[in-house]
């Protein structure tokens, strides 16, 4: 009767319950911030920039009241891979040299590896913050607003925003269908096959079968969705409330711009 210890799952596209300053921000602001920070990190992946961005993300997470439980459990194999990476990188040596008691340890390789890992973690955390604090319903209207300057260039921004909104609506239903497909496959007996060749062939047919079943269901869903759109007289509004930045958003954007500028200046000055 003891509670089985379960791994925390990856929860997709659902904000952490409750509200906060960060939850209240316009979705477009969050998308801009993530985009800008990703760009800065891509151009200047130095320690100082990574550290500053990590602090920024950390403060935002604190403001948004993200509990530790929101993080999915990290599987053991990932830790092991990381550890192997660290050991190998340390063995790789390189400048600088750390003097530990009597031994000299070359930690250059390790530092490079750690910096790369830190960069990946910050980038992942950025995306996760958007997912943890944004209602999916707000994403498509925000993109429609952000894309408005592209309209004179004849980009069908409106169509794209509607397609995105509908795709986000269909997405959880498709995931549920995948879950069923996977379960249906688990229920079947495993055929015993003589050799690797037969196994590979069987794997290929199975993939096509699963894909065909998935596509069939998706097509049916699309047909019904098409009917529902026709019944509404085609596309038009996608949100009841207007989607645009508020004063808090300008503050958030300014803070982000300030931190990015500071990071770049420090990095270029060679302090990184």
């Amino acid at each position, binding site marked *: 009767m003891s509670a089985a210890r379960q791994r925390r799952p990856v929860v997709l596209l659902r904000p952490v319950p409750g509200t906060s300053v960060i939850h209240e921000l316009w979705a477009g602001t969050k998308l801009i911030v993530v985009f800008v920070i990703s760009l800065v990190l891509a151009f200047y992946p130095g320690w100082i920039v990574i550290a500053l961005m990590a602090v920024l993300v950390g403060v935002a997470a604190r403001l948004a009241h993200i509990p530790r439980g929101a993080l999915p459990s990290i599987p053991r194999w990932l830790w092991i891979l990381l550890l192997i990476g660290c050991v190998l990188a340390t063995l790789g040596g390189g400048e600088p040299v750390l003097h530990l008691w009597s031994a000299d340890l070359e930690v250059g390789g390790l530092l490079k590896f750690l910096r790369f890992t830190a960069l990946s973690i910050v980038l992942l955390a950025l995306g996760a913050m958007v997912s943890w604090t944004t209602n999916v319903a707000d994403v498509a209207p925000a993109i429609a607003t952000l894309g408005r300057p592209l309209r004179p260039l004849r980009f069908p921004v409106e169509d794209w925003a509607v397609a995105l909104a509908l795709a986000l609506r269909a997405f959880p239903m*498709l995931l549920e269908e995948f879950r069923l497909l996977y379960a249906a496959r688990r229920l079947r007996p495993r055929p015993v096959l003589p050799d690797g060749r037969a196994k590979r062939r069987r794997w290929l047919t199975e993939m096509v079968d699963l894909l065909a079943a998935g596509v069939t269901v998706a097509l049916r869903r699309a047909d019904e969705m*098409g009917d529902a759109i026709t019944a*509404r007289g085609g596309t038009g509004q996608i949100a009841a409330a207007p989607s645009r930045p508020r004063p808090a958003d300008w503050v958030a954007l300014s803070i982000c711009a300030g931190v990015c500028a500071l990071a770049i200046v420090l990095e270029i000055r060679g302090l990184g």
Partner: protein
Amino acid sequence: MTSMGGPRVGSLTPVEMAQAAVMGALSAALAIVSVVVPFAGGVSLLVTVPMGLLGYRYRLRVLLAASFAAATIAFLIAGISGFMIVLNCAYVGGATGIIKRRGGGTLTMIAVSVVAGILNGLWIIAALTVLARLRTLTFEAMTANVDGVISVMSQFEPFRQSAAQTRAMFATALQYWPVLLMGYAIFTMMIVSLVGWWALSRVLERLRGIPDVHKLDALTEMGPVAPLPVRLSEARFRYPGADHDALRPVSLTIETGEHVAVIGANGSGKTTLMLLLCGREPSSGRIDRPGTVGLGQLGGTAVVMQHPESQVLGTRVADDVVWGLPPGTHTDVGRLLGEVGLAGMEERDTGGLSGGELQRLAVAAALARQPSVLIADEITSMVDQRGREGLLDVLSGLADRRQMALIHITHYNNEAAIADRTVNLSDSVDNMVMVGSAAVPAPTPIPTPGVTSNSTVTSNSAVTSNSALPVLQLDGVGHVYGNDTPWAKTALRDISFTVNEGDGVLIHGGNGSGKSTLAWIMAGLTKPTTGSCLVRGRPAHEHVGDVAIAFQAARLQLLRSRVDLEVASAAGFSPWDTGRVMSALATVGLDGSLARRRVDQLSGGQMRRVVMAGLLARWPQALILDEPLAGLDAASQRGLLHLLTDLRRNAGLTVVVISHDFAGLEELCPRILHLENGVVASAVQATGSAGGLP
């Protein structure tokens, strides 16, 4: 099903939009699986297929919209790597689809993939040239790891030489990184293209013959919207190529303020009549209106259809009400929601609504268009009892209050009682006898435990069926989804009961009662958070397959293309073993001639039976059926119930049914467990039947 009507230039048509959205979501889901799930990277190759399908069937604009949607979702969830996978696959898939449509061959595909590879390589090289620091960091991190491996190798004499060579090779490789990357880009692009080409060809082969279930066509009509009064004079409809009328000649007039019920058996043309009222031209006869139909337009015709989930297009309740209205229209969302009994739910997520709530929301969205006529097409048929009553409440009096006509199409005779008048389409006596209109499933009163002595059991006792052996034993089962996360949601609490050999148990509960979770736990597909579920004394989750489960969505359980292959695969014997396939089909009352039939050509009832044939051929300890009757017409329902009752009685099959309805299940399932909010509210043994037991 290639291109639907409507304008070929300009904005996407409803059908194109829906295809772009759903295929975009499918691509995004595949891309995300390939990034998030460990060792599933190969799945990313399949992202090309949905995109290829769009390229094959629709114009470029559709493909672009789908790529944008898919890339954005992939980016939101899986970050930049998901984004890149979607973009690459959209490009390759789109090219594959277009080449296929134009009749190109594998060689064309290879040529195109080389060009694509070169372009892709140039793009990566350009990006890495600009992002010099990121490049340096990546290369240095890689070098550090390689150096580490080499220094380990150097410790051992036999490897020393090759270690030095490796180091030199790696350094040279990094020096010529653009060349290497270019080679890599071309190589991967070719592989992805060839796999995509192969998979798309196979899938397209499979999709031939899949029926198109879309009904409504977007109209290209001009003039003022005025659908009422509508007068049908001997209007008749026959689908092109069909040998009989879908709708026999009908004459009727519908005016403002009327509440008209249209009843009739399956196949009597109820839906066809709906299509005519929505603007389809009759094959003969006349339909007169003062203006145009104005489907979905302000003051025009609004339609609510059968499937609750697919009616709703917005992710948030308030957004769904206004979805599709012309920009700038002001809508009093709160009042509309109040009118359909959803007051205060503006900010709720539509994903969490029950079937009844979804249908009410669809009615609210229809009313937001201030329609002259509202057509409700079997809107209660996939909704539970409580939802059905709520919906009927909303519909009654609507026509008077709103100054519009309400046309309520239903196959439940007593739902028509609230209408002003009834149009019965099944005028042929034969038809009535053959299929018959169903009575509304009457709610069976749930007796509280202890009221009828001798006929009730408490949820914890296992004393139901005399001497029979227990098959399923649940002891203190509880389940929490997303345990330890902020999204934790308790689905089940402290469920204990026993199902014995030959039992027939109905697990009854409304939306969100946890009944599906319970079914998954019994089938071993979900491991409960607390408590234990034993199958013949062994933990269920360690023996998946011992207890069979038939899902409501039968199509998802049919993984093979043909009936015989499907049954053989599910049962675990060779598809050439015709005898066993035939006997499996016979068990579920299917004719052997169906064996070579493609699964997509089966009816809903046949699909359920084929699934059961595969499951039963393995002699499962018990068979769980999730909503086995949903979506079937009255005749198929009766046939399936008869078959199941027979199997339980005569073959001793243990049956557990999961359902939100009681209708007709009394004989199959004498024992009822009522589930509410994740706990057993009451357990009932129906009097006078201990079916299948000595």
